[in-house]
């Protein structure tokens, strides 16, 4: 079932891809192939493979249970939040929080998770800043005045 669904998604995506390739503007200086042919070729072959996957799927996969899905969603949210927090909030606080939460999602023990967050945040900061010489801000720039 998952293979059939995946195949369907890819088939739709490749049709959209080919459609989008047909919209590519060609300029006056065009070679015999042009900018459309190769993408259309790739889209067609990809779509064909996806059809074959749908027709002959592999045995069903083992998907995680509900709780694991929640963990994965939490991890995804944390990572995206971390991506946006890194610049305005400096390195130390977002890293400690993100690393701690990820650690907790992998192994649900609170104390090791907190220690992991703090340790990684501090340790990596020292390595990045003083060994590799990256220009990172430890704390929000506002705090430095």
């Amino acid at each position, binding site marked *: 079932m998952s293979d059939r669904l995946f195949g369907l998604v890819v088939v739709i995506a490749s049709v959209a891809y080919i459609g989008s390739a047909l919209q*590519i503007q060609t300029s006056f200086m065009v070679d015999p192939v042009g900018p459309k042919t190769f993408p259309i070729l790739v889209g067609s072959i990809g779509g064909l493979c996806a059809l074959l996957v749908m027709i002959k799927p*592999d045995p069903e996969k083992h998907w995680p249970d509900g709780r694991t899905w929640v963990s994965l969603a939490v991890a995804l949210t944390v*990572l995206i939040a971390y991506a946006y927090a890194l610049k305005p909030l400096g390195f130390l606080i977002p890293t400690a929080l993100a690393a701690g939460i990820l650690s907790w999602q992998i192994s649900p023990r609170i104390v090791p998770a907190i220690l992991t967050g703090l340790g990684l945040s501090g340790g*990596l900061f020292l390595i990045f800043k003083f060994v590799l010489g990256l220009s990172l801000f430890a704390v929000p720039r506002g705090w430095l005045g």
Partner: protein
Amino acid sequence: MDTLNLLASGFAVALTPTTLMLAVAGCIIGTMVGALPGLGPSNGVAILIPLAFSFGLDATEALILMTSVYYGAMYGGRISSILLNIPGDEPALMTTLDGYPMAKAGRASDALVLSGVASFVGATFATIGLMLLAPLLARVAYLFGPAEYFALYLLAFSTLGGIASNNQRKAALASCIGLAIAMIGLDNSTGMARFTGGNLHLLDGVDFLVAIVGLFAVSEVFVFIESHGKSTAIGVKIDKITIPFRDIARTSGTMLRSSVIGFVAGILPGAGASLGSFLAYMGEKAWVRDKSMFGKGDARGIAAPEAGNNAAAGGALVPMLTLGVPGSGTTAVLLALLMTLNITPGPLLFTERPDVVWGLIAALLIANVVLLVLNVPMVRIFVKVLSVPPWILLPGVTMVSFVGIYSLSGSYFDLVLMILFGLLGWFLRKLDVPTVPIILGILLGNAMEDNLRRAMTLSGGEWTYLFSSKIAIGFWIAAVLGFLAPILLSRVITKPKGHVEPVGEGTASMDSTPSPDDGTGARGRDSDGP
């Protein structure tokens, strides 16, 4: 001797204090990366590349550091194979077959030393092979025109697919996904935007480092969350390192034979170290008369895959440097490094930048000696690394990935894109779709299209031009055979089932035979093999 002069100039580059230090550091990091299950050569190298740039290394230095990591990871992979029965990376899978039984029989230190020596023999053989063969191949590559390159890229995709997966539909699909992603951005020859959806960030295309770090490193976090980081931390103790001279002497023939097999397997575009160790093990088993001990801790069963895997790792550098076609996941990552450094691999590299090529070869020879020291007398240090639990390791890897990509581009967009690639990588791995072909597609897509268009321009739009030379026809035939062979062979030969889930280099999982715990345990990373 021309080669010797060039090699001497290479040593002049490699023996400066900075490069020497980088080679040693690379070896240490590489061995750790290889030893840690969940961190393989391809994602290990991938997360370090952005840092190497931020560190301000020049091209030769960066390449030496990263290839030392690459070689080191190939050595390190065996440590957890032997001690935990979990391959530290995909090519080390075969080492579990005899390494773990030998360790269980109380000879863990013998197994580690023997495999370390075998790795040294394989890697040294391959480095010398690289030194002799690469310049020759580079000269042949001068004869290649756009039609030949187009067919060669096709060959790389079709053989990589065959090895990376036991489902050719999915491997081909993965290649197409990669190629489709490569098309995003400004068209090289007309300057028209393609598939950007009006997003300005996408005009430059998708940065392959973002895709690689996402697919290889960030996806690992999701894999481990799903498996709840089944702890790999097992108290392993090695009392004393003794050198089993008798086993080494007895397996010297094995090591040499396996090195040859591995090196040849590594050179094949798209094949890589997993194939090297697999063929070396199978070849050795076919060669010897008394097979009764295989799988029960036979010294030859340890020496063969380790020599084969390290020889293949070196062999895979040959097509990467001379043709720009990586032989595996990790060499694909190294190719990304070269491209980011504005070095175009190919025949011109050998004439225009001999310092890079020969500096690298000399550095690899030095790295091998360093690795022998690290992996035989000092192996106990790396055994300790195995006790780093995943709930510290994985968050650490993620944070390093973020900082690396952030320091490269400083853009939120790339970070979010990296996370999305991580999620995609996790889904694809669940679905047994190999991710290495995606990377190869992103890396080679533009070159492949350019060569097609150049060929058509030369011929005035005549499609038969693609089959106009013997070399091109040879590549086409090899590509078709390479694609079909696994489908036909899989009916005849059943692949050996590892008793463990593949960890580490993953997708190229030779044994992606769905095992009952593939679900949780498909930690197979991708790649690599080199």
